[in-house]
């Protein structure tokens, strides 16, 4: 397993086996669960570690937990925020606040600063380690003038977040600039405030890059004439028979580091040189995956579907399912009646919510199983 090692990751973010990572923030964080890309990339980076994730993002939220207000009070919004963090039992907490607070401008910057420090104190007291994210830019704002103002304010708040993370010796990830692109709105929902699928992929990648948790896409360069294989992943049991008309090797593969989505395929490529004339098929784990002429293989064949892409799809599906059920559990509809002040009426359904733990834990386990690397046989054969 030379290609995955935590020595490359920053000192400031290195989850241990069994760790719980919590995402906290406003809609930037809440909406991530629709895609699950960040969780996917993080969990997949350490296939050998059992990691679990909980998303505590809440639209409109601030470091004061303002969006967590509801009819039942106490707890006040901030107390509720802290109790939700505690209940999630984080070892790590990735915090994405500031986009909402920045709307109050320079005048309220010190208020934000105090709030973020207060929150970080609480996080520290729980014993969790924080990673701070910057805000993301706003791509549409009603008028050009307002947009310029908004983005200036966002940068101002980013500076404060950076400064606080420096003072507290915490990792700070600046995702802002990654979203300043010529076709900026391509990464956003129509409102220019929230990210879309492409945006969340970029969001996850930016975070992985900055944490220096990047991995290469597996490539295989086979030279049939010399019976050698060059690859950035481990390869074993190489065999070439029938005058190089039949080449097989085993490789340990896992889901691709980047999730596979419709708009962006990041498949592995196999290049085979020195083949004899003819048509060759490639099977992986006994399943036919590609077919091509000698020339095609020389140029390199990109595997759009493979056991690892299927693994990727499965992993994403499980992550999204788990997030959805967790959302229903910690932020259920009818919570006024179930856990709020009218719980004397429907409080019995608290049991139903608690019972969701079984499903969530089961899915956590499924996710950690699904990311396990598979050792598969690659077999290139000439068609008779």
């Amino acid at each position: 397993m030379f290609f995955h090692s935590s020595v490359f990751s920053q000192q400031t973010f290195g989850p241990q086996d069994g760790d719980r990572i919590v995402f906290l923030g406003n809609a930037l964080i809440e909406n991530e669960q629709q895609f699950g890309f960040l969780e996917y990339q993080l969990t997949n980076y350490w296939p050998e570690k059992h990691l679990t994730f909980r998303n505590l993002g809440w639209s409109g939220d601030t470091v004061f937990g303002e969006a967590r207000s509801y009819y039942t009070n106490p707890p006040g919004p901030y107390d509720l925020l802290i109790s939700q963090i505690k209940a999630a039992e984080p070892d790590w907490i990735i915090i994405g606040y500031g986009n909402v607070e920045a709307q109050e401008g320079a005048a309220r910057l010190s208020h934000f600063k105090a709030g973020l420090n207060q929150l970080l104190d609480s996080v520290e007291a729980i014993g969790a380690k924080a990673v701070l994210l910057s805000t993301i830019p706003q791509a549409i704002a009603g008028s050009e003038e307002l947009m310029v103002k908004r983005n200036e304010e966002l940068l101002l708040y980013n500076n404060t977040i950076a400064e606080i993370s420096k003072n507290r010796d915490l990792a700070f990830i600046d995702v802002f600039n990654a979203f300043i692109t010529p076709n900026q709105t391509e990464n956003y929902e129509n409102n220019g405030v929230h990210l879309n699928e492409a945006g969340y992929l970029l969001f996850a990648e930016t975070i992985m890059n900055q944490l220096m948790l990047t991995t290469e896409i597996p490539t295989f360069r086979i030279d049939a004439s010399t019976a050698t294989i060059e690859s950035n992943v481990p390869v074993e049991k190489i065999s070439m028979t029938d005058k190089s008309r039949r080449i097989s090797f085993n490789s340990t593969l896992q889901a691709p580091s980047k999730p596979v989505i419709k708009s962006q395929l990041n498949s592995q490529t196999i290049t085979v040189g020195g083949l004899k004339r003819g048509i060759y098929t490639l099977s992986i784990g006994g399943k036919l995956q590609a077919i091509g002429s000698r020339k095609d293989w020389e140029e390199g064949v990109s595997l759009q579907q493979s056991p690892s892409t299927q693994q990727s799809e499965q992993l994403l599906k499980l992550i999204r399912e788990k997030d959805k059920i967790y959302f229903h559990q910690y932020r259920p509809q009818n919570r006024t009646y179930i856990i709020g002040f009218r719980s004397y009426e429907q409080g019995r359904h608290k049991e139903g919510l608690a019972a969701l733990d079984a499903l969530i834990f089961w899915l956590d386990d499924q996710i950690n199983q699904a990311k396990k690397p598979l050792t598969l046989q690659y077999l290139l054969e000439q068609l008779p």
Partner: protein
Amino acid sequence: MILESISYIKCLPKKARRHQKLSQIFRNKTSVVILFLATSISVHGQNALRDIPSPDPQDQMDRFEVAAGFEVNLFAADPMVVKPIQMNWDAQGRLWVVSSTIYPHLKPGETANDKILVLEDTDRDGIADKSTVFAEGLFTPTGLLPGDGGVYVANSTEILHLKDTNGDGKADETTRILSGFGTGDAHHLIHTFRWGPDGLMYFNQSIYIYSHVETPYGIRRLEGGGVWQYNTKTQKLEVYAKGLINPWGLQFDKWGKSFLTDGAGREGINYAFPGATFVTAPGAERILSGLNPGQPKHSGLDIVSGSHMPKDWSGSLITNDFRANRVNRFVLEEQGSGFISKQVDDLLWTDHIGFRPVDILMGPDGAIYVADWYNPIIQHGEVDFFDSRRDQQHGRIWRITKKDSPLVKYPELENKSILELLEALKSEENWERLQAKLILKNRDELNVTEGLKEWVTALDPSNPAYEHHLLEALWVHQAIGVVNVPLLKKLLTVNNSEARAAAVRVLVHWKENIPETQSILVSAVKDSHATVRLEAIVGLENFKTMDATVAALGALDQTMDVNLDFALWHTVSNLNSVWLPEVLNNPAYFGDMGKTIFALNTVSDPKSTTLLAELYSSNKVPDKYLELVQEKMAKYGSSEDLTKIYLEVVNPTSGNADKQLKDLEILLQAAKERGLEPQNTSSQLRTLLKSENEAVEIKVLQLIGLWKKADLLDLLLQKNKDSNEEVRKVAMEAMGGLDDATSQEVLLSMAETHENESIRVLAISQLVKTAPEKAASVAISLLTKKPTENDIRDIFAAFLTSNAATDILATALSNTVIPSETAKVGRKAMQELLPWHRRNKDGALKLKVALEASGGVLPPERMPQQLDNQQIYALAQEVKTQADPVIGEAIYRRQSLMCQNCHGIGGAGGQLGPDLSSLGTSLPIDNIIKSILEPTESIKEGFELQKVTKNDGGIIMGYLVNDGAREVVIRDMAGNENGIPKSQIKSLEKVPGSLMPAGITARLEKHEFIDLVGYLSKLGSTGSFRVTNEKLVRRWKAAPDFKVLAKMTGEDKWQNLLSKNLNPMLKGLYSQVAGDLPLGEIPLVSDNSGQKFSLVQFEVDILKEGELSLKLTGVEQAKVWIGTKEITLSKGIGSAKVSVGKQWVNIAFAREKAGNGSLKILIINGKSNSAQSQLIVGQ
């Protein structure tokens, strides 16, 4: 889930019990399977309770009653439409329905698959023949709106726009439009999506929903109920109106005025304008009321228009009383800047409890369509989410048409040209105008603008509808986002005031694009019509300038009304950073004391309070603002401010005796609630105490205690010898307040040895506060000597005021035996006086044990109060078969049960609990029984108990009336509203529980209980237990047999009484459901010749002057005065001309001739010059 099913085990059939065991075996294994098993068991568990009508639509049809001249047909039913929540038409005349089968709550492990259905009547025969599932996989969708090439859908936390891009009738493209809406309660989720005539999208949310939406313009938050406004073109989201408990219906009239109905409120139609704020809005300082106080709760709303309906129905409002299974109609009349609303005859009603009309709309054929959610159960929180009686599979759309009236031809708008669409804006059908506008909204902007120019030029100014056509053109401009200043300015000067008002609103919407907006608004505030002034005042709030402030306050130069007052208050308050510094600097700045006082009252800045105190103490406040300013001084005045008032008390300059009393009250309130005292008080108090006026004397005594003037103890002792019991008591209380060693000694010695027992009791009561141990030991020695029952009660009352004191008395009592009679009185006092939340505290439990040890055992309950589900079910069957609701009503009205003290019927009665008018049609019998036996288990929204903890540690329990920015208003146990300044509040907490005491029916015989429940279960159903919409007097005041009255001779002298202020002595009485007041319940008064008379009154609010006519039945030869003017009755009918304002109507009659029947008074409307009136209901 698992525990839930166990709790049902008692009533499970055998087969289910086996399942139960099975699931228990599985319990220890973590498996999804368990969840589903347990769910299926709980369904079996309540099968025994099934008592639901046949879901056959024909059965429902047969039981419908329809207004004369109308008929009803089934447009669609399950399986074509299932569980409809909201419906809306598209331009092609298809009916879009949003449906949720998981409502009200997703079962654990279940996946939501709620749907959008499209119903089509392709052959236009009034019956849907096609139903398409447009989208599925939704999660509790509660609103939908076709438009912009697809459909907008409320999907829990978000709004989606779904589109069918390939024409197969199914959505294949999803765009998320907005997100961040709250989900605290599934029946309050964002709902009722409607297009406004301005092309903007409006939707509602209700009390438990707290939303935080991130938009391109910034964060938008709405906590609690309200109406959102969303511009689908610019993505601008704003809060349009706030409050109400469950704002459900939402609709706009042809001039763009908006109306709301409330599914949980009780004020009928609510008139909303931008910024309008109603009951329950968090942080609101001022709220508006609905137009029909005491009316039922309503769902859905539409406004009648078009050629198919009767001409005189046009503009009337139709809405559903889903609890009573009826469709109501209201007629509006303009009044100042708002409306008077009058309920008229119902459109549709039935005794079929499955009929739950939740939405109502006029259709493209001119008929009325009613979405019937179909469910015997409507409760959300009160009945279990998974109760098997909840219907999850049926649904109907009913269609109501007028007999012998041609239907409207479908206009086929889809493929029309721009000019043809513009012509459609002349239609009298609201539906057609709206749909044409929505199509235009999505056509090419330039072409539409060109077309509009042409169309407007060609309009005929002599057409009576010309100004409305101009307004429609302006709205198209607004919808497409193209500003047209000349057209706007033209509309601002037209004759029709509603068109001018609508234009002002469009102007405000365009304020960023029209530089002269502020100056136009400044002139619009001077408009001759109140409705235009209202819009202008609201608009001026956007301009943080002195000009805007001065212009807005200019509204005070013309007639004001509640809406104007509300809007002006808000605007001036919001602009305070502009004007307050100027006015503080120069109080004469506005050049008008009324305006200055009005403005200062809108802010809470201490400097403004000080200025008000100066103006008040120098008698410069105009009379109409006196009360407001006095209240402000009491709540917010500083010690310095109060000193000014104190100096005015001791040296009055106004010569107004009432004012001196008022000022004393201000000082008392400030001292009681905030512990404030003016500077340099004392010597003058001695002088004041010599006042001839007893009321002044009492207040001064109270101040001595509160201000702890120990140097005045001699005065208190002297007053204590006073023959007047009340003065004596107050003096004693004041002594207790002094809290210094000398007065404590005096009190103790009085408690121990005073010859007068009642003074001993008073002294003990005072000592409890400062020296509870000493008080307890003296109290016990007195209790052993068999004091009077009243004195025993008073002693216990004193110790029961706090848990600590209760505990001390209990400890002391546990070593002593007191006479058993005395102990019994103590137990009764505990039952009556201890609030429910303290009944299980240690002190109370200990006291109970101690009293029982002395023989204080209460007689056993006659009606058992602890019943399990099976016993409740059995009882419910007895109610069905044996109850006599007529006897039940008499039991309900018994004084001893106190039902009427807290509950109203038809709005008349106590306001502490929910109105019971339609209880029977909304709550199954077993739930009624349960809520009587265990009141805390079943609380209606809006009746949640609140606990206010004050900074000084004091606790106030009650219902929240309003949680404003500056103060919280709580309705206490006595039904009084108390405003508590936020600065004094440490925490405001909702606590589970009810003010309704448990065990209230324990003294009833079982058959009486059955009759009582029988009566309650009939309330609201068709027949004699339904509150009709006739204007019957339901709330009365009656004169008791009082000494003053006995001095009068003969009924002719009654009128002399009318000028006297009898109010505090009067007894509240309420009519029976049928609207009559039994004569036996009206007190008898004897005059000095021994003749028996009765005097009753009722209050009516005259909204518009004219002739007030009434019809009196049940009493011969009654004398009736409207105000002080006697009217003559002919066959019970009489009338008088009345002017605007509240009036008392007095009725006197001799009892000898009256018999034993009941009195009934009906307000008659209908004459051309008749007054518009509203009967005052409530407590």
